[in-house]
């Protein structure tokens, strides 16, 4: 893909904050969350990746929606390479947002598994840190755990997103155009609580090892080219 254009099945989202962390988790823990058609993409046998991603979409970033924050939980799964070679393929199993209208749209258009409206999504841009929570309590904190922030590379990144709705599996293509810094430093990346947002996943302390983090360059905006999902398989 070289240049995206607005077409019927594509929505372009503009964001001014993005932070994503891939955590190492036991495959046994996450397997019950996956539909049978797809498998976790293990980094070593028995160890899979849980992904938590937070965005801030500024007012006007998506049509008339106000400024809001989004929190996504997914599992890295085996991609479908017949569609292209993605950086990662994710199975999205929980989506939270501080904007109810955004949640409704995500469920309707993207078949995303909306959790519920979140009470807060605090973003500390200076420190690259976030806090999310709702009426059930704090969901998580997440922060940059690299001491050496390096190059923010702006090349296009292709992802695949699997979602399940009414027992039907869907796949969507998704491209990011943003200046991102990626690292694999294994410091303290924050706290993930055992919260309903994670659909029953219970994580032990030593299993919150960050495998990979990606951060948007502060002061810049990125674009997400998110195609409408198609039924898979």
């Amino acid at each position, binding site marked *: 893909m070289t240049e995206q254009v607005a077409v019927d099945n594509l929505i372009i989202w503009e964001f001014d904050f993005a932070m994503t962390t891939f955590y190492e988790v036991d495959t046994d823990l996450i397997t019950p969350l996956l539909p049978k*058609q797809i498998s976790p993409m293990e*980094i070593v046998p028995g160890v899979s990746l849980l992904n938590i991603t937070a965005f801030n979409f500024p007012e006007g970033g998506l049509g008339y929606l106000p400024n809001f924050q989004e929190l996504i939980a997914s599992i890295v799964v085996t991609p479908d390479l017949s569609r292209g*070679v993605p950086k990662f*393929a994710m199975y999205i199993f929980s989506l939270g947002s501080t904007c109810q209208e955004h949640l409704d749209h995500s469920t309707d258009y993207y078949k995303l598994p909306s959790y519920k409206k979140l009470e807060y999504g605090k973003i500390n841009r200076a420190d690259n840190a976030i806090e999310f929570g709702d009426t059930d309590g704090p969901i998580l904190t997440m922060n940059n755990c690299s001491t050496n922030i390096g190059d923010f590379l702006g090349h296009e990144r292709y992802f695949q997103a699997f979602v399940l709705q009414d027992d039907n599996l869907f796949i969507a293509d998704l491209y990011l155009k943003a200046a991102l810094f990626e*690292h694999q430093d294994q410091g303290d990346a924050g706290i993930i609580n055992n919260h309903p947002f994670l659909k029953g996943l219970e994580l032990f302390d*030593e299993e919150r090892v960050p495998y990979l983090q990606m951060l948007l360059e502060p002061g810049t905006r990125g674009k997400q080219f998110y195609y409408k999902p198609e039924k898979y398989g």
Partner: protein
Amino acid sequence: MSEQKSKEKKPSYTEFTLDMFSRSSGKNHAEIKQFNQWREDVISADKYTFETPHLTPQTPEIVVRRIHGDEHRLFNFSSYNYLGYANHPEVINAAKDALDKFGLGATGSPLLNGTFDIHKQLEHALTEFFGQEGYGISLFSSGYGANIGVVSSYIHKGDYVVLDHSSHASLIDGAVMSQGTLKLFRHNDAEFLERILKRIAKDNRRILVCVEGVYSTDGDYGNLKDIVTVTKKYGASILVDEAHSLLVAGASGQGAVEKFDVLGDVDLLIGTFSKSFGGVGGCLYAKQELINYMNYYARSRMFSCALDPAVTGGILKALELATGPDGYAKRKRIVENADHLRSLLINKVDIGTSQSWVIPIIFGDERKSIPLADYLMRKGYDFSIMMFPAVKKNKSIIRAFVTSEHTKEQLEGCAEALIDASKEYDFAL
């Protein structure tokens, strides 16, 4: 303007890492097509440096033939021939003698009809080399086979295998074959290991902690003292893989276990013959009763042909040389050589935590890997390039293996080439 500094879009093959082609959902095996397309793109760009046949032995200077037929004379910093025994005249003659006496192959499983007298001689010599009463050796036809066979027969379903994050694939695969639960701890972090052991010890199951004497990507020693202490505290067993350290580390070459004085605490010691011995194969050193068990139950041993007699003869001679004056001199020289190369590189490029004869030069962005490997080869140097997922994201490395056989001039040329590359590819400090 050089390609890597250009603002133009990089060739598509640089955007991919090998993990991205490893698996695909769906029934159509799209990973095979995509991988072959990537490989073809690299070959078409004349950047392909993998699978390059050597036309000479693994000496410090070699000749290779690239895929399009062009031959290159290179300085060799990519071989595990640490002490030069792969082509030592006495080792070659010993191999020839064994070949004449026993023939080409063992043509049988070691447990049934594949064990020759020369295998027993090697077992005896290695047992003597380590020198502990009541211990013995089990021979395997590869180091990989030793690790998968030993781990999978020592640990069973419901038990635990706890690995350092930088562990070799053979240890991981052994853990998978065992059907035990695999846990990873941060590289060399004994405190992290203790947190895992504290939790899983409550299950009252067998636990095997696996570490390495020298890590082949980081080039640092295993934190053996602390890790052995923690392991024993929780009643777990410990395996030390000395693939890159046997014959090289320690005053007499017993490996990192000798250097850190923990040989007596180690339950299973794995050795490899394809590195400093200059041959191929592997071994387990452990208490004799465990060796007897492994000889029957390590499936990779039971169901593989025994070591080639010629290779066994060569290994035996390499061990004899390594335990004599020749070995002491070579161990001294390889340490001096590695220290010299590090001294030439330090503050010029990032060499991470290297303490041994394995020196990683961190160049970072994996998208530089393919062009950089090609560049270095065209400059006359053969290195191993490692990129994600073999190493961390943005921590891609050029891996230099120093041997006792490199000359001072070769080391200085190597440093110069690497420093030139660091300027050309923007990873100079």
